[in-house]
């Protein structure tokens, strides 16, 4: 069945061009076209539309999007941009539209965009979580991978895993894949991409978890700067409802930029000699100093033994900050990760997976 389209575009030449394109396709039936957004908002109900194509170059139009979402629930809305504008696109998607496409378009672009954006599994602003650790070997990547799989399963929404540990990223090995594309390629190509054309850079791990890998040589890390990585993270948020970023250890331009941007930062450390608590304390102090709001940075300790509420309280006292979660040692994990079998996972009846489950629930409830 053809999409019943309402086109909203102020620019006369563009309006005519888009209208012509749509009319040539059997997949679309143009019900009405508007140059004024107010008129469209009031009158569109008469036409029983199934798809709005809305010019979002204009900030005033973007401001009206919540009203469209409210008045026409269930009707798909695609924003049209003449060039990629991350801030405008972010606002538009935050108001609950399906996504953004570039104009002028071919009708196949619209069909592709609908297909790709529907896989996101939910509308509204993306939720970005950065996985930071003062030092390596913290359990950071394991946590990110298990949490991504769990969250995607629970919500039916999609999760992106971006391996930004560009020198020594471990995610490809965890999933036993040989990536076709890496963060370096994506950042390099970003200026030419829209969210829909970024989608193939992600390796499909499950139907709603995608992985963008780190490059296979440490020296390529130099090709990605903080601005490029942030641009990638923002664009990924149009394809995935959750965006997880696995950061390199320590404070560096990439980790600083991403932790500033993210909705939540997990500060992950593995209990080993005890000095790790001090590392987390120093990191949290720096986050405080950098005015990254303290309430979005959450310490997580792994390999805690005994992994009990008392132990958690004791660690919180030592640290001077509330802790999001503590994780026990899980012997199975080493062999699971060794064999690239993380997808098959750790048995769900373990304390490890129960804790992952709990953390996923808290993320869903936006408690962090």
């Amino acid at each position, binding site marked *: 069945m053809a999409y019943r389209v309402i086109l909203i575009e102020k620019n006369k030449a563009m309006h005519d061009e888009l209208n012509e394109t749509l009319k040539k396709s059997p997949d679309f039936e143009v019900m009405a076209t508007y140059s004024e957004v107010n008129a469209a908002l009031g009158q569109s109900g008469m036409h029983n539309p199934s798809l709005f194509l809305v010019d979002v170059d204009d900030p005033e139009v973007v401001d009206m999007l919540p009203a469209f979402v409210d008045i026409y629930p269930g009707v798909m809305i695609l924003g049209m941009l003449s060039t990629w504008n991350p801030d405008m696109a972010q606002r538009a998607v935050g108001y609950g539209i399906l996504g953004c496409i570039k104009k002028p378009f071919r009708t196949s672009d619209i069909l592709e965009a609908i297909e790709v954006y529907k896989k996101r599994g939910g509308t509204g602003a993306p939720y970005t979580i950065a996985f930071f650790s*003062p*030092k*390596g*070997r*913290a359990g950071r*990547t394991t946590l990110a991978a298990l949490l991504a799989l769990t969250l995607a399963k629970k919500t039916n929404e999609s999760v992106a895993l971006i391996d930004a540990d560009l*020198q*020594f990223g*471990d995610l490809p*090995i*965890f999933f036993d894949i040989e990536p076709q594309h890496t963060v370096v390629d994506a950042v390099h190509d970003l200026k030419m991409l829209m969210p829909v054309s970024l989608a193939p850079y992600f390796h499909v791990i499950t139907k709603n978890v995608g992985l963008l890998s780190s490059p*296979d*040589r*440490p*020296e390529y*890390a*130099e090709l990605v700067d903080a601005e490029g990585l942030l641009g990638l993270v923002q664009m990924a948020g149009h394809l995935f409802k959750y965006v997880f970023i696995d950061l*390199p*250890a*320590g*404070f*560096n331009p990439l980790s600083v930029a991403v932790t500033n941007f993210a909705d939540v930062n997990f500060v992950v450390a*593995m209990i*080993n*000699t*005890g*000095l790790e608590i*001090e*590392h987390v304390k*120093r*990191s949290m*102090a*720096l986050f405080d*100093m950098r005015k990254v709001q303290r309430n979005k940075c959450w310490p997580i300790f792994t390999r805690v033994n005994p992994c009990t509420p008392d132990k958690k309280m004791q660690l919180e006292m030592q640290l001077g900050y509330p802790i999001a979660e503590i994780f026990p040692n899980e012997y199975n994990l*080493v*062999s699971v*990760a*060794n*064999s*690239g079998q993380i997808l098959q996972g750790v048995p769900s009846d373990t304390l490890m997976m129960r804790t992952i489950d709990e953390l996923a629930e808290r993320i869903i409830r936006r408690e962090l």
Partner: protein
Amino acid sequence: MAEGRSSIIISIFSTGSGIGKTITAINLAAGLAKEGYAICLVDLDLQFGDIVKYLKLEPKYTIADANADFKNDAEHFNVKDYLTDYHYKGKGGEIRFSVLAPPRMIYDAYRIDVDVVENLIMQLNYFDFIVLDLSAVFSTLNVAMLDMSTIINFLGVIDFLPSVKNFKIGYDTLVRFEYEGSKIRLVENRANSQKLIDGRDVERLLGETFFHRLPNDFPSVNKSILEGCPLMFVAPDAPLTKSFMELSGEYTARPNSNQLNPATPAEPQGFFTKFFDIFGN
């Protein structure tokens, strides 16, 4: 400085943290000091260096102060003023060595200039050995330090596939830096722990044999951290202690200068500049 005299610089490097770099650096420094050499141990994990905590030192000055003062007045700068002495007397004897401490605040780590650190290391040349404890990343600073080093102890724990992958990536990268083969010494830590991966397979993978293997001994290491002193004092008979002694012994034979040639400081290099040709410019 005396003509022709220069320190031997031994760096401890890895491509994963939490695998024993600091413990190796401290015990290597201690072993060399025990043999009567003048040793300076430099903590170059600027953000999260643990040497000071480990040895329970309270440094008056750190590398951050040295960095600032050097930039302020290089002419009257003397690196000696910024070192902290470590001294321990126990049943096993007595040792002394100097430590250049990392910054107190992470924020200060940002302000440290690579060329200043290069200068500091050059000024430390009155020591017989300088032991550098690096962080686990290819950074501008670490690459500059690797360039300056006489010997790179490239440390790995190979119990976990990602670690093996990172060990291999790190080694391949060092090889691409075109260091002399003899400069890079592979050291396996926790070599005898129960694990699923065989060290010999890793040697085949790397095409290079391990120069030294350190056995696993968490209890002794833990005791040494608690006491704040090197293993030779808390676990003198432990195989790990002996293995560290053997490792320092490897570097003190110092038979002729051909074998352990003090490094000539390299031209200052940008981070990975030596790779730019692979991108066609």
